[in-house]
């Protein structure tokens, strides 16, 4: 199997449809016609071959990233199954939306318009603040990364594994998505791209037990790490001492350390603090700001690699413009 796959892999990516076709046909042949050892060895030998092949795959994936291409190729076959599974729920939601009453729609429209007005006015202020921030940082001679690009991706309602908080979205490496990109929704940080496949990508939520995100408290800048708890509405802050300056209701924002999440996005709100005088660290719970189980549209973020230069004429010009207004 793996030898065949490698042979197919060497065909240039330009012939991708053809290539996928070959792979599909090969898989089909193995499932349906079962050509290997049609009359030959006993089932013991077959089991041995299958087990050795599986172990080889398991080890090879740990040791190198070569198998990612095999996975991408196979995902061309499995992605349709995912989208078919998503289809009924997606459809029913759309139908529900389309039979809403005119009155409700009008009301919602009015509300959205008001919200947009508020956000626009806040954005005006934000632009001025951003320029001021860049100027101040230039005074401090610190570089500043800014200006992320985003891509809207839609969630597929599938559940890959019962205990992992991993979701699938419908944008993949065809759109330039790559692993370890931050993912946001309208309210805060959702997670990061865990695996980018050609047509879809898997996103690990911040509440997954094997996920951790560097955060800081917005009020005083105290930095720590928020670890997923396995519950969709809870994060743990296991590394803060009993006397740390933290209060219930504090906003946690991403600190930008670690290089995956851009700095300054809201992550969670501190929910409960249990002091443990007999232990070095307190037990602190936080509730994610993002609507992890409700958002259907997610934003995948590209960070701008180059920091904004410290002193340029452009910034001064825009400053003047703002002053003029």
């Amino acid at each position: 199997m793996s030898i065949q796959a490698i042979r197919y892999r060497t065909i240039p990516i330009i012939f991708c449809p053809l290539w996928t076709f070959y792979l599909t046909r090969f898989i089909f042949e193995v499932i349906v016609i079962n050509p290997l050892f049609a009359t030959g060895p006993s089932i013991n030998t077959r089991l041995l071959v299958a087990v050795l092949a599986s172990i080889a795959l398991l080890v090879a994936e740990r040791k190198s990233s070569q198998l990612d291409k095999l996975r991408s190729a196979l995902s061309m076959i499995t992605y349709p199954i995912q989208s078919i599974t998503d289809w009924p729920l997606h459809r029913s939601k759309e139908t529900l939306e389309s039979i809403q009453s005119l009155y409700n729609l009008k009301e919602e429209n009015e509300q959205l318009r008001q919200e947009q007005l508020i956000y626009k006015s806040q954005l005006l202020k934000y632009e001025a603040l951003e320029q001021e921030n860049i100027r101040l940082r230039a005074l401090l001679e610190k570089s500043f990364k800014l200006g992320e690009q985003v891509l809207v991706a839609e969630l597929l309602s599938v559940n890959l594994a019962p205990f992992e908080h991993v979701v699938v979205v419908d944008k993949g490496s065809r759109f330039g998505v790559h692993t370890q990109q931050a993912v946001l929704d309208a309210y805060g940080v959702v997670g990061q791209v865990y695996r980018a496949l050609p047509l879809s990508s898997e996103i690990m939520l911040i509440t997954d037990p094997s996920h951790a995100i560097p955060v800081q408290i917005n009020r005083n800048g105290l930095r720590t790490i928020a670890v997923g708890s396995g519950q969709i509405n809870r994060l743990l802050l296991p590394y803060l001492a009993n006397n740390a300056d933290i209060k219930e209701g504090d906003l946690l924002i991403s600190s930008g350390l670690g290089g995956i999440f851009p700095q300054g996005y809201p992550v969670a709100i501190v929910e409960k603090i249990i002091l443990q005088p007999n232990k070095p660290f307190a037990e602190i719970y936080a509730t994610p700001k993002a609507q992890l189980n409700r958002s259907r549209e997610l934003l995948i973020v590209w960070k701008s690699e180059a920091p904004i230069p410290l002193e340029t004429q452009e910034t001064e010009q825009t400053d003047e413009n703002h002053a003029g207004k």
Partner: protein
Amino acid sequence: MPENNTFSYGRYLFSIIFAMGLNIAAWPQPLAPFNPNWILLVVIYWVLAAPDRVGIFSAWTIGLLTDVLTGRMLGLNALINSLVAFLCLRLHKRLRQYPILQQGLFIFFCLLVSQFLIFWITDSQTIARASYAFWLPVLSGTFFWPLVFFSLRAIRLFRRIR
């Protein structure tokens, strides 16, 4: 039992794809841990029903596709499927004579083996925290076995009996 007359590739593939859909279907949150490994159940059924057509390599390939579908390490479900298919091939003559309850015991054993393999091979934090809920698919899978068995038999034999 004339399996050769009653085996249809279309129905076989359809049942596998349907099981893959069920495997990743989004169940409501409190019920999600109960979602059994439908693909394995369907593979077990086909190995028992048509051991001359569906063998270890078919099970292995389906397992590989399952790995990609559910984002596991490549080879994990392939290993499980081929081992379980081997057990079924070894015992299929006896198992087909058993009443459904006794078959259920065997299915329970197969699912337990598969879950143990996942437990040993995966080094995820997730399983360590999931506690007893991790083993629920074994119970629910055994519980759903009669459903899988009778519905797949109905699909296999529908307008095929001669």
